[in-house]
């Protein structure tokens, strides 16, 4: 059986990769991907803690499933917004999106 620390290490790496991507990437699509990465690392944590520490309960699994569903819906909306922005500005770089600034 794999030790809990290894799995948590993976999820921590995913989380920091997501944060790094979120802060540094210019493309809005990449920023969205980074957010998904962070969400997934959180999901992994839920599942792992449930499996390893409280094997009798199922709350962690359900929470993870719930978060995945929410994330799917949210990314669908985000992509729809991005498509609209692209149609309007022919560009989806975060630093170029200044249309609604003051």
């Amino acid at each position, binding site marked *: 059986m794999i030790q809990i620390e290894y799995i948590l290490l993976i999820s921590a790496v995913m989380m920091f990769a997501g*944060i790094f991507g*979120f*802060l*540094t990437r210019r493309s809005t699509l990449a*920023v969205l991907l980074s957010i998904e990465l962070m969400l997934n690392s959180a999901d992994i944590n839920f599942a792992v803690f449930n499996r390893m520490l409280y094997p009798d309960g199922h709350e962690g699994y359900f929470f993870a499933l719930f978060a995945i569903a929410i994330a799917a819906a949210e990314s669908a909306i985000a992509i729809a917004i991005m498509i609209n922005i692209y149609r309007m500005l022919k560009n989806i770089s*975060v*630093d170029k*999106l*200044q249309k*609604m*600034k*003051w």
Partner: protein
Amino acid sequence: MEYTLFILLLPFLSFLFLGICGKWLSHKTAGIIGTCCLAVVAILSYTAAIDYFSLPRLADGSFRPVSPFDINWLPFFNEGLQFKMGILLDPISVMMLIVISTVSLMVHIYSFGYMHGERGFQRYYAFLSLFSMSMLGLVVATNIFQMYLFWELVGVSSYLLIGFYYTSPAAIAASKKAFIVTRFADMFFLIGILIYGYYCGSFGFNFNAEGFAAGGFMLPTALVLMFIGGAGKSAMFPLHIWLPDAMEGPTPVSALIHAATMVVAGVFQVARLFPLWIEYAPDALSIVAWVGAFTAFYAAAVACAQSDIKRVLAFSTISQIAFMMVALGVCTEITTGHEHTGSLGYMASMFHLFTHAMFKALLFLGAGCIIHAVHSNEMSAMGGLRKYMPVTHITFLIACLAISGIPPFSGFFSKDEILTTCFAYSPFMGWIMTAIAGMTAFYMFRLYYGIFWGTENKELHAEHTPHEAPLSMTLPLVFLALITCVAGFIPFGHFVSADTRAYDIHLDWGVAGTSIVIAVGAIALATYIYKGERQPVAEAAAEKFAKLHRWAYKRFYMDEVYQYITHRLIFAHISKPIAWFDRHVIDGFFNFLAWGTNALGFQIRGLQSGSVQKYAFVFLLGILILLFILIL
């Protein structure tokens, strides 16, 4: 007598209907609607008068005031002080109902001819209805606050009607002047009402409240303040300046508002509060008397030198209203009876109000016919008109004789009562008023000869021959002339007197004889000076007293004095600094606040960059710092 509500309601509905739907109606329809409403109102007023005066008198012989309506319209803080609306019938209000509805009906009929084809004919009738409603509401008011409300409405409709020819700058200026001057006076009226309400505990006309005795000096103050309001409406010196200018309005309006009804509102107000004046402020009443006496003299003097016929009539109105004020002012008691001459003035004043309303409306309507015929207000355009306009000539002559105080016309009887009461007050006052009555006869016949006799303006009359006015205009003249002939024989004292007990008018032949002699003398003098084709005496007198003539013609420069006080003193030294302070200090402070906030906003707007990644970075940093603190 619940039907009295319709006396107010009908003109109001007619005003709303004509005001809103007027532009889809033809001139004729609008005029007929307005006139019919007024005719019904007049019939109702007469019915109310007959019903009221046939009520049984109380045990002491006085009439009981009847109040068919008294609705609590606006309750104030405590139980006593409430703002009620209602209808109060008592001898003077019923008498005023008759005066207003009669003159208003006559003016409505007359306006058919006078305003024929005029632009805004429907609007004119709507305003006339509004005015009739407000004036009727004023006289039947159950309390002083309702009176004030309708008082202001009367002022507004007067403003609207003076400025009826709104394309003429003179009419606009006159309407503004009338409104501002009377509003200025009404401010004192309001203060007086509030003081009165404070001490009386209610705004009603109950004159035996306990608070009055405790009020001490304040009650006479309140009465004098209310009198200032009344003086503004009734054009007493020095608040008379608006009335001559108000002649810019259509002539029937001058007849209705500025001769017969609205301008006597001040007299009516003093009469309404008369028990208070007698009981608590008998000394202040002499202010009313002397203000009236001075105004009567001043206006009569100015009227002798005016050349615009409507201005002459306006100043004669001021003078006659001042007669009414004097009559009220010289009263010393309220009990009526044959040996009590101290209360005669009240009856005399109301009687003169009644007769004056009729013959002055007649004079103005006659002047309207003349203006209609020659298209000018100036006496120089007239002269010799008696051949062209026989009906106008005869009715005008009757009115002139009435105002001069020649028996058997109505003015003689009422003026004689006033002079009797003045002589009872003090011989000095009596002689002054008799002299002014003589001046009245003089300037009225100067006017009469100037219009109907004297030199005919042949060039003007050749290109446009004067003609008698149409039937709709002469009919009211004849009707009012008939009233003027018979009104003197009404036993007026039986209906209206200071304590509403019956009083028999009996002529004091000493006073009456003197006034007749003086009036006849003045008429003879006017005949001698003004009847001929040429007027050498008048020219010589004007030459000799050139300065006096000029001063009188310019109304003793009262308007210039006002101009100086308002523009040079008040506007320049008070209003302008205040305006500067407002523009620069008050506005400046708030502009500074707005500017400061704006500048601060510009300074810190960089923080709101809109870049999500920067926000996230700050957020992350914050979390790390918090985490660091927590771990430590």
